[in-house]
């Protein structure tokens, strides 16, 4: 076995949140190593539709976006909601279009621009927090590696090995979803290719979407884990053809992954323990409509800032991180807060205004369809928790930190 490598910080994962954290750490002169299981640049399943806030973050921190980090079309104008009553609502993003990221290259570009040292094809296998340092175990080409770091940041996505190392039971405590997308050549597609399309249709699944990419059409479905991807997908393709006149060839490729949809809704984030911080989607950050990249970037940056801050002030890093992350929690969970949605503008597109543009009859249908769609989630018993979180937000400045793990 090689001698143990001593560094300031180890980041697990080489995604956007990792790049954001690495950027802050490298700027502050900390020796940072990023561990990535796959060979870089690596493929990543994602819609790639980044929110304008995320676009701003990328530019401010890594510079303007090169062409290779974008799919075709390179941009998306907004979101279109479709309802079973065949009402459609088109909403443009605030401040113009937004990037359609090619995650394989955007993540690679960002992590390279961060200036951190990247060890790819290196799998995280475990950690041991010894109070003043953490020993991280990893494996590359069958060889066991050890890193000794002052802090570790877990930025390793929804089914996070870092979380499993800290809380082995956590994955059993939350509902898991599967999201999968299949790529089809287009025969005819009346869906506007400038928009991301989303269906609030309980019969189609918990999360149904479609958009154009590189001359093909993506048909995506999300559902509670355990269901059949092909059957769900086939059902959606038929629905698109019947109701929207979308004619597609059989799919050429497909991909899917597990999703931890839920912690943002009920303010049940996982931020780690001791010298180990968890960030990005691993911590549970997910915007409405499932966009997780912008909050991954911001929460990742905050985890990096917290490490720097804690060192400079000689404070415990976990406490510092939890204090600093509160603003990102507030912003993300506000997106799911019914009071905020009704009376403020927590999203980056204006749903209430789009609703008010509809005739009265259609408004009623939309509200009815939304309600029916939400009943699909009844089994997770989130309603009461969402209302409780909304009430505490009304009284205080943020969401209760005692709910966090």
């Amino acid at each position, binding site marked *: 076995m090689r001698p143990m490598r001593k560094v300031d910080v180890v980041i697990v994962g080489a995604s956007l949140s990792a790049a954001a954290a690495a*950027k*802050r750490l*490298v*700027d*502050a*002169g*900390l020796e940072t190593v990023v561990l990535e299981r796959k060979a870089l*640049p690596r493929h990543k399943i994602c819609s790639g539709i980044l929110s*304008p*806030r995320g*676009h*701003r*973050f990328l*530019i*401010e*921190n*890594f*510079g*303007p*976006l*090169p*062409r*290779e980090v*974008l799919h075709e079309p*390179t*941009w998306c104008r907004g979101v279109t909601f479709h309802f079973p009553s065949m009402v459609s609502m088109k909403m443009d993003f605030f*401040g*113009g*279009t*937004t*990037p359609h990221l090619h995650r394989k*290259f955007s993540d*690679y*570009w960002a992590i*390279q*621009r961060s*200036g951190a040292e990247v060890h790819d094809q290196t799998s995280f296998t475990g950690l041991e927090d010894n109070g003043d340092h953490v020993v991280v175990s990893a494996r590359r080409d069958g060889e066991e590696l050890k890193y000794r770091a002052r802090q570790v940041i877990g930025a390793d996505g929804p089914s996070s090995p870092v979380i499993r190392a800290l809380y082995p039971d956590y994955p059993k405590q939350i509902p898991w979803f599967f999201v999968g997308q299949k790529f089809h050549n287009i025969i005819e597609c009346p869906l506007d290719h400038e928009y991301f399309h989303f269906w609030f249709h309980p019969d189609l699944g918990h999360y149904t979407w479609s958009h154009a990419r590189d001359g093909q059409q993506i048909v995506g479905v999300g559902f509670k884990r355990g269901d059949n991807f092909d059957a769900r997908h086939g059902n959606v393709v038929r629905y698109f053809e019947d109701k929207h006149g979308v004619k597609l060839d059989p799919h050429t490729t497909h991909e899917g992954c597990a999703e931890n949809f839920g912690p943002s809704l009920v303010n049940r984030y996982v931020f780690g323990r001791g010298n180990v911080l968890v960030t990005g989607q691993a911590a549970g950050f997910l915007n409405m409509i499932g966009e997780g990249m912008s909050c991954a970037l*911001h929460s990742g*940056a*905050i985890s990096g*800032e917290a490490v*720097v*801050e804690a060192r*400079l002030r000689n404070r415990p890093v976990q406490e*510092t991180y939890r*204090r*600093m*992350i509160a*603003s*990102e929690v507030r*912003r993300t969970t506000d997106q799911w807060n019914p009071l905020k949605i009704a009376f403020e503008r927590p999203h980056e597109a204006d749903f209430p205004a789009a609703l008010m543009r509809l005739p009265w009859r259609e408004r009623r249908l939309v509200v009815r369809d939304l309600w029916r769609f939400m009943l699909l989630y009844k089994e997770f018993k989130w309603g009461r928790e969402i209302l409780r979180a909304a009430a505490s937000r009304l009284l205080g400045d943020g969401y209760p930190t005692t709910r966090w793990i």
Partner: protein
Amino acid sequence: MDIPVIEPGVIPPDHVAPDALQGIRRQQTNPKRWDGAGWTEFAEVLRSAGIEVVEQPSLRGTFATDAGGTAYGMPHGVVIARSAVQVADLLRAAQAHRVPVTARGGGLTTEGESVAFGGVLLDMTGMSRVLAIDREGLTVRTEAGIFWHSLAEVLRRQNLDYLSAPLNLTSSVGGTLGVGGIDVNSARLGCSADQAISLQVVTPTGEIVECSDTQNPELFQRVILGYGQFGVITEATLKVRPYTPLRLHYFYYTSLRTAIEDLQLLDRNDASDYSGILTMMDKVVNLLVAFDSDAREAAFMTAWRARLRGHGEAAVALRMAAYYALHPWRLGEALFLYERRRKLFPEFRRAEYTRGGVMFDRTVVFSRAVWKFWGGRQMVIPDLAASEEKFVEAVLRGNAVCRKYFRHYTLYCVGIKLREDHRAHYELSCVPPDARERAYGCEFEPMIGDQVIARDRLQSFKNEIYDIGVELGTSYYRFGGMMKGYVRRVFGDALVDKHLAHKRRADPAMILNRDVIF
């Protein structure tokens, strides 16, 4: 995938559609840390030239952030400035090895302008001696790393004082001349940068040059208000004046607009020697008026006092009591104001500095109060600098943004007299191009205290304030560092490219204060 290397000063295209992020300049504002290529050889070259380079992490760490406390960077080494020759040697070597050099005085920037993202941090406070005082000619020659307050201590031994300087004990002369510098007498005496008669400057290529309105005037024009892009100021000759204590008066308003109109009325008519506005949110607006002599004070009392619409402290307290009695749900705000008044006001009347109603050291009084009551671990102070006509609207709109983001904040407004013969100095600076005779500045300062607020939220706040400026066509004081995305939006590509061309000629490797403006 090939990751392109971006040269300093170059903004590569962003390939998302042109209508993305409307109004936001697509420019990296949190710079990439310099990668340290060739650092060891460079440090060796400096050492062999007799320049001490501090490389211990604990010492470098003391320069990790600035007063803003949101940008963190770590220099590879710190050089403490000792002489113009040493600075020249450093810059020549840095130019040859393409190593970035960040100059820092008191480190009072808020946007990371004095934070080194790698390379050398040049700590100018090592050059802090007063060289010569001319009592007859009323000038002083000083090294530029000196703090204004230390300069004042030396001057006051001879019953002299500087003209105007930031109300802050640790702002340095060189840093201030590079960006502006406002005081409560700026409406009468101009900004600090305008009191410089001549400068010794070390250019980015390592030449030591003396410049003034008559000697090397182009360099003088670029260095004054030049945000450190065109040289390091090592010495300065400044105008001074006989020292006078202040006769202070406070007038209280409950309307921002009325207070600003009264401030402008006084400034237009040269009715006072010092004037400024300091607020507690937009609830209590304090117009400060002060005089250098009893005669000026008496003239004000006769001609102008009755025309001001402000009240005394007791009258405004009664008005506030009535307001909060009718708005009981704002009890928290009322208690905050009460507490603030109770603790803050005595600070301005401390017996050490005030005798017989006359204040003897305004810098100490204000600076102590500023740090005690407004300072915090994080500070963002976006500002708008507008012409007299646009100022009220700029402040009112900025105030609305403050209200939206923060529960507690302060506004600080002053006028700045302009020098027609220094128009060329004002290009690409905080002085708005449409201002004639006098410009006005307002700082919007949230009171963050011990809270920690994510950088993104602070950035959104600053952006919203600066967007008002873009819309109204004003300028800003703090447009460097993290706010440099606004430089081209406000000044336009033609002007910025003109200055960038100057910069490239003066600093071919773009080493000096890289990433601050361009």
